[in-house]
């Protein structure tokens, strides 16, 4: 197991290095730069600006400089926000996205696994159909429709919540629900599928034959195997949910990292793009590794093959 984890870790480091390198050079080939503004400045001023940020050095030199400071944990200054560093921006925004993500994920797991299991146990009854309809609707209706609809009803019509913002605990409710529903839908579909497969297997029949209660059969024996597809899905999903959702953060004006991720590319804020890409890539790799370990632990078959 240790060898497995070590080799996967080294692979991830290599992949991360490739991601950083590719992002660094691709960014520089995109037309327009951080100082391309609506009103053009004289070449003299542009040179001064570029010199301030070291953009006048040869590209390979800039790349080495960047890697050097990266090894010391320094992601550099932001081009768009001159009085803030990329480290500060990430430290400021990630907790917000993570809080929203954690709330939404909890809701998605409770709702998704609950509904999926119910649907599998009560297969081909109205319970199943209702849960499946919810699943399909959740997957097909985008958050930018659900979000404003909930705001319209709960914030504007009933006046229970703010329409947008991230000031107090109440402001967490609507965005968490919208983001949670979006993830609950695929989780319920995956749970149902996984459970159906497991519930037909011999060891379940054995458990029933031995007189285990239905509740025990479902929760102790079936869920463990039935959740395997959900676990694989959760790796990238958790990375996505924790690093923020551009759409949800825009609809609810939430100061999370998801908006920075997108806007930094529009602003050609080279260092901020790299910082957010590194964050996202590292998180995905870490979570995928975690998923593999959890799967090995949950599924004896995978463990044996490894």
């Amino acid at each position, binding site marked *: 197991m240790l060898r497995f984890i070590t080799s996967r870790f080294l692979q991830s480091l290599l992949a991360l290095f490739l991601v950083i390198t590719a992002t660094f050079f691709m960014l520089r080939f995109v037309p327009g730069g951080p100082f391309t503004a609506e009103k053009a400045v004289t070449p003299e001023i542009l040179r001064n600006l570029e010199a301030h940020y070291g953009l006048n050095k040869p590209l390979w030199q800039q790349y080495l400089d960047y890697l050097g400071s990266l090894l010391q944990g320094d992601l550099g200054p932001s081009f768009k926000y*001159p009085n*803030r560093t990329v480290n500060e921006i990430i430290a400021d925004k990630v907790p917000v996205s993570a809080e929203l993500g954690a709330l939404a994920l909890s809701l998605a797991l409770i709702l998704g696994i609950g509904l999926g299991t119910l649907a599998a146990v009560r297969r081909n009854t109205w319970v199943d159909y209702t849960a499946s309809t919810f699943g399909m609707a959740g997957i097909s209706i985008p958050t930018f429709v659900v979000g404003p609809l909930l705001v319209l009803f709960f914030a504007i019509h009933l006046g229970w919540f703010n329409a947008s913002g991230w000031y107090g605990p109440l402001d967490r409710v609507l965005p968490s629900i919208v983001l949670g529903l979006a993830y609950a839908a695929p989780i319920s579909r995956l749970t149902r599928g996984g459970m159906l497969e497991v519930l037909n297997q011999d060891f379940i029949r054995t458990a029933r034959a031995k007189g285990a209660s239905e509740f025990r059969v479902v929760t102790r024996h079936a869920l463990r195997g039935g959740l395997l597809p959900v676990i694989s899905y959760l790796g990238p999903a958790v990375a996505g949910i924790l690093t923020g959702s551009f759409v949800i953060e825009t609809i609810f004006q939430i100061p999370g990292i998801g908006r920075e991720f997108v806007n930094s590319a529009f602003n050609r804020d080279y260092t901020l793009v790299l910082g957010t890409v590194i964050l996202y890539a590292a998180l995905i790799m870490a979570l995928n590794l975690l998923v593999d370990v959890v799967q090995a632990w949950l599924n004896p078959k995978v463990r044996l093959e490894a």
Partner: protein
Amino acid sequence: MTLFLRVATPVTAATLTCATLLVAGCGRRETTVESGLRTQTLHVGNQSEPPDLDPHTNNSSIVGYIHDALLEGLVRLAKDGATVLPGVAERWEISPDGRTYTFHLRTGAVWSNGDPVTAEDFVAGFRRFLDPKLGCEAANFLFSVERARDFLEGRTKDFADVGIKAPDARTVVFRLAFRAPYFLALLTDSHLRPLHRPSLEKFGGVDRRGGKWTQPGNFVTNGPFVLTEWKPHTVIVVTKNSRYWDAARVGLEAIRFYPTEDSAAEERAYRAGQLHVTMEVPQSKIEAYARSVPSELRSAPVLRSNFVSFSTQRPPFNDARVRRAFALAIDRERLAASVLKGRGEPAFSYVRPGTGGYAFPPFHRFDPAEARKLLAEAGFPGGAGFPKVDYAVGSRNQDNLAVAQALQEMWHQTLGVKVGIASMEFKVWLDVLRTKTFAFTADNWNMGINDPSEMLALGVTGDPNNDAGWSDPRYDAAFAAVNSAPDEPARRAAIARCEQLIAEEAPYAPVYFSIQNRLVHPTVVGWHNNPLQKTDWTALSLARPK
């Protein structure tokens, strides 16, 4: 199975109970707008997160709105956006030749930490504004000052050469390179404010980018408000400055500026009672507001011109007849009525009439017959043989694409020319603009100076913002005559000559002038719109409407 459901039911019941409690807990609360009325706190949508609150490292209008609350210049703009009132300067004299401005500072003006505001603070602010190291995009504002441009572009390193002096602690003198009748009004601009040097030096030095002196607690201000909170992408709070020399005039206790990037989300926040004033109104909502609550919809013309820029150095638009044909084929009235619908008014001159107090006759018109005739003369009768050209459109402004499609149709109908639309991401478009790799494009200009000369400069040979790449010695001479005009009639004539040449040669074809729409809550007293979009925050207060 039944057991499973037996467990599931209490869970559902518990969830429902929690939900009910939550709902009972919130109920309809006092909205932000209502509590603002109690505390005299104004909640304002401010479009996006300011890059920094440093007035000299950016040219962002949203930073300007906040500076109008924090810093006071020599003079300030009245609510109408035209009249100039005393600020830190209590009086001033202008020499008969219109080239020397002498300002006398009042004695009561102090910084928020108690230091007096001196003439040297102003000189330091102007020097920093022109510092090539910081490279402010708006530095062209001071090109009328003697040798200011030389200092900015490095032809002199000594600021003593520049025509800005402080002979004593209470006097600031400007020597202009030419007669600039707009200079007094220009000094109300948010970039041209005094600088509290000790606090900049404390945080890394005066000529440093990105110093922490603009943070709450560090930012020493001299205006009606002080900065008390700045949570990035959440809110910027300013509260009343008790040390402001005219604090009695200030009605509000605090202003909260919210970055509201998404105008649809901003409008929902307004409806939910979170904002007193929005920065804009989503296109799709303008008509509904105009119908249902017209008193809350405040529409006003702003100094933003939208025009077509032709690449005059490359075929087919290197031929003035082709450019004129395309310009004459634009039916501006139809465009304003059917596409813009309250977001723009037809532009029949390059510079908006009324800018700087100048009136223009309509230089441009819709004339399909003349347009077809010119195109035929240029060798493309009925559009036959006209090369395939793309109209480049930057994607930032939603109106751009709709307008471009309408223009595409007009050029097709009138000239028989098939034009493609190349829609591109904003910075890609800017790059295309700078490298002049377009045929013609949807261009615009936001005026920072309320005077035609700022926009007319875009036609001068070699100007960095001359997107058309146009060069005409007659125009360069006419523009030089605007600045060297000894008196007002001569200046007016020179400006008209520039407009005339732009109409004849058509490097730029005006399309429409923008209108800004904002939502203003009925409890806001003293709200005013003006073309420069400047708000006098001291003139506002909150009261229940009678």
